[in-house]
């Protein structure tokens, strides 16, 4: 069970802080796959990284993250190390280059595991099982990363990241670089991990709503560093409350839809700068239903069980 409470993470830059995460609170239940969607730059990656490892420019400004009752010391790189891999793990956006190119994959895994104080023998058989699970030959362990195709690498990284059965797995854009058929295989493999209870909870970050729709239990929509809406997958797709969510869904073309038949519309304008963000609702400028009250930041409130939204109109 993951609880994120009022998490604020900023990027330090020369021209002031970028408030990439500006107070986000949500929870992910056990055995829940939560899809995290939003426009580019909305803070999805930042959120994912915050749960694992802040990079040099990221600063934990406030808020807490609690995993199964333990507070994660996300601002403290040293103390956080104990949780990584064991409790929280990530499948990064850059899976294509995530493995040391000059090490055989098996060797790398052995060294990684050993460095965490775990004897390789103890995980060896599990490793083989996982490879079978994602449909990789065991012999890939003797290969170098360059000898694997993109989809294979993606699945390999998934196996590595989940090897110690973490409580939480963050998967960041794991399918974006793949073509449709591979995409499907990888996404299903991801769901497979949850189904076999190898991972308790999972956050799947993507900008492709239709993809998360396939595997996620709930979807969290982010907009400009803030949460816009969270609800079970079907609810989000069928009855979105936040105008941004609605626009997002409406802009998705579907197979069979032709412009001549049903002309889709995009969302006019662009997201605001986060350095610093304007006051009030951040979607205000692009929102077709904005009104005076929007000058004030709407709270992220639960409007029905499991369905929270940050919009004055909705609540």
């Amino acid at each position, binding site marked *: 069970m993951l609880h994120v409470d009022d998490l604020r993470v900023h990027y330090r830059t020369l021209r002031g802080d970028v408030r990439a995460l500006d107070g986000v609170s949500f929870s992910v239940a056990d055995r829940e796959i939560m899809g995290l969607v939003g426009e580019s730059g909305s803070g999805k990656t930042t959120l994912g990284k915050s749960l694992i490892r802040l990079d040099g420019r990221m600063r934990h400004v406030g808020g807490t993250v609690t995993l199964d009752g333990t507070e994660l010391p996300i601002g403290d790189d040293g103390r956080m190390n104990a949780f990584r891999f064991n409790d929280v793990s990530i499948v990064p956006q850059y899976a294509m280059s995530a493995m040391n190119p000059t090490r055989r994959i098996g060797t790398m895994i052995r060294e990684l595991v050993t460095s965490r104080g775990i004897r390789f023998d103890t995980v060896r058989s599990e490793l083989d099982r996982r490879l079978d699970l994602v449909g990789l030959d065991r012999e890939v362990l003797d290969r170098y990363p360059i000898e694997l195709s993109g989809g294979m690498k993606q699945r390999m990284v998934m196996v590595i990241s989940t090897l110690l059965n973490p409580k939480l797995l963050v998967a960041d854009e794991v399918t974006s670089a793949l073509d*449709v058929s591979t995409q499907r295989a990888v996404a299903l493999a991801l769901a497979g991990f949850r189904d076999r209870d190898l991972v308790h909870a999972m956050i799947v970050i993507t900008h492709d709503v239709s993809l998360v*729709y396939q595997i996620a239990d709930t979807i969290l929509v982010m907009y400009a560093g803030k949460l816009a809406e969270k609800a079970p997958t079907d609810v989000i797709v069928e009855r979105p409350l936040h105008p941004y969510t609605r626009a997002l869904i409406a*802009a998705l*073309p*579907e*197979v069979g839809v*032709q412009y001549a038949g049903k002309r889709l519309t*995009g969302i006019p304008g662009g997201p605001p700068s986060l350095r610093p963000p304007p006051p009030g609702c951040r979607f205000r400028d692009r929102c077709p239903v904005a009104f005076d009250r929007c000058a004030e930041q709407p709270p992220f409130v639960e409007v029905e069980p499991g369905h929270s939204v940050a919009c004055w109109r909705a609540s």
Partner: protein
Amino acid sequence: MLRLDGVSKTYKVGALARKDLHAVRDVSFELRPGEVVSLIGESGSGKSTIGRMILRLTRATSGTITFDGTDIATLRRGSLKEYYRAAQGVFQDPFSTFNPVFKADRVLTMIRQVYFPGTGDVEWRGRVDDALSAVSLNPDQVLDKYPHQLSGGQLQRLLIARALLLDIRLLVADEVISMLDASTRIDVLNLLADLKERGLAVLFITHDLSLGNYLADRTVILRRGSVVECGATSAVFGDPVHPYTRTLLASVPRLGIRWSDEDLDPGPCRYHAVHPGGGPPLAEVGDDHLVACFAGNDERECV
């Protein structure tokens, strides 16, 4: 208007260029004015290569590409310039299509230098404004800015505006929307649709089937450089025949429909039903609907 006849492309790769890589094999199709053809295939299937050959950025190894009856391989300096007046391209990555060192509107100035050297400032400014408004860009927002100060959608539209400055009749749009956000993407798609209304032919290259479907009159499915199925979009999407096409379609994540393993069985080889002893690369299986043998390109026998 544009016609590809048995076009192939072989890249020489490896040390001392000894290995052949058949990126495109024996591809033929036609593009008529005001028609959008979408070229669909997985990564590496040769889509971009076809687009580049049409724009003469790469030469075909064999086969001919004709534009208004002229073989574009024969074009030389002056005539090539005229060809580009009529045919232009827009590419996948808007950020890499702009030279980051220069202001974004340099792409427009280059057109002026080559094609409109005599045009006065005022007249030119008028043309630019027209082109920009055609792609619904506000001149003040995009002129005199560096590429990194503009969004991907703006840049992509700027590129289309650039093409519009010329009297183009053909636009090769190579994955123009795959780098864009879902919301921006639809704007660009709609813009292309509008251009089609104005009589422009568009070769729409994509790996995203839903997007190919949204716009296109006709669809060509590529696999490893060969056409496996092509025809009217409604035919190809409504009744996908080739197993590869079916796999692709089944893998597309759709809202409201979860993945299932149905629809994957293609039944017996429909190509062989038409040409039992083998024949042309593509067999007609319906009205404006052609398909290749179900076997891969490598196997000779269809099982």
